[in-house]
């Protein structure tokens, strides 16, 4: 029987209260939201919190809304809500691409965006998605809020910029015209973690790629930001040849390890193919030419 080790449980009634509890209880305290990453880790004793602070009652952290030139997503927004949101699909269709293949619909009823990002598993899809669209993480502590770009959010495997006594409250994505995005993933079977996954977002201006974000999941110790591929693409006219070059960079710049999901050369091959496909589909969407 898999049961977590003992811990104390409390239910937060406000964000301020949750943060106060985190501060009071110190490094042994963890936030629990959907629990679909944390509880499995606790059953395996890979996570051993002494206190769990349940934030599921904090409805004020569950929303997807347009605020000025940003799209804001509350940390407690569940996968099912990300999947079904027309607002999100209109601006960033890669979220729906990813949500359709994250675990299964029953798991998606519970898991949250905040929990996914804070788990910081390299194979977790939303981390690559948020990196590609250049999202920012809003982290709140007793002293107020700070905003961290995704490139600084992922510090290492299962480690994020969220410090002791702090919690992730919101994800913000800048809204810019001419954008398109896509997420591509290969998995062994429905609902499994990725063998490899690629997220891409492009912003087209005057027939050229004005800006671009590309990130890989499951092919390194953390989510991989493909900055070299982004540099190659920026300022150029989109073409399949160019995307194939970006795919070659993806293959070279990832660092997969061999495991039950496949050998290294296969994963590098997937990184290349999926990067090329994601860029191609993102561009077609930006140009409203998706087949």
């Amino acid at each position: 029987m898999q049961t977590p080790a003992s811990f104390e449980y409390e239910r937060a009634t406000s964000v301020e209260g949750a943060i106060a509890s985190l501060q009071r209880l110190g490094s042994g305290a963890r936030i629990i939201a959907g629990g679909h990453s944390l509880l499995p880790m606790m059953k395996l004793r890979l996570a051993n919190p002494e206190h769990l602070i349940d934030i599921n009652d904090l409805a004020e952290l569950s929303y997807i809304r347009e605020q000025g030139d940003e799209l804001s997503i509350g940390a407690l927004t569940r996968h099912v809500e990300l999947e079904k949101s027309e607002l999100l699909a209109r601006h960033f269709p890669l979220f729906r691409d990813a949500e359709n293949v994250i675990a299964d619909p029953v798991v998606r009823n519970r898991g949250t965006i905040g929990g996914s990002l804070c788990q910081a598993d390299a194979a977790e899809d939303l981390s690559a998605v948020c990196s590609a669209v250049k999202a920012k993480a809003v982290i709140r502590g007793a002293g107020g809020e700070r905003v961290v770009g995704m490139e600084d959010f992922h510090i290492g495997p299962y480690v994020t910029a969220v410090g002791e006594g702090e919690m992730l409250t919101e994800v913000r994505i800048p809204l810019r015209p001419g954008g398109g995005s896509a997420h591509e993933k290969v998995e062994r079977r429905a609902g499994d973690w990725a063998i490899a996954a690629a997220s891409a977002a492009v912003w087209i201006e005057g027939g050229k790629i004005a800006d671009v974000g590309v990130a890989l999941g499951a092919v390194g110790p953390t989510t991989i930001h493909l900055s070299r591929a982004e540099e190659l693409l920026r300022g150029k006219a989109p073409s399949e040849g160019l995307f194939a070059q970006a795919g070659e960079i993806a293959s070279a710049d990832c660092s997969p390890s061999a495991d039950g999901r496949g050998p290294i050369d296969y994963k590098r091959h997937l990184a290349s193919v999926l990067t090329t496909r994601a860029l191609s589909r993102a561009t077609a969407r930006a140009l409203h030419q998706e087949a």
Partner: protein
Amino acid sequence: MHVSISVNGEQVSREIEPRQLLVHFIRETPDLTGTHWGCDTSNCGACVVQMDGQPVKSCTILAAMCEGHEIRTVESLEVDGQLDPIQMGFHEQHALQCGFCTPGMLMTARALLDENPNPTDLEIRTAISGGICRCTGYKNIVSAVRWAAEYEAAAKQEV
């Protein structure tokens, strides 16, 4: 800690350890062993129950998190000897052999039809993709859900 959870419309109150999982809380309640405890890793879906109408995997939810929420288990489907159309569909279409996955499949399918009374086969397959059945190859489960959808549509017309 003391928890009080609404299970199938009745308050179940008990002293528990905070680490108790919902699946064990349910199964340790007299007459509520219909919910199956399977893989323990949120993969197999045998433990699916409804929480506020949504199917969830009860092996990956703490019982403590459920206070204030409505839990429904497979025992809630049959009322006064009358089977739910989903159960009738499983019977008619021979959608189980060993039956271990069935409680989770039934609760998942019930939630699907409550939200989408006329799902396509693809929508049914997607909805039950969080459940693993090692007997049927899923074909008869899909047929059973379709049977229930048609039965309910016909019943609605008669009213």
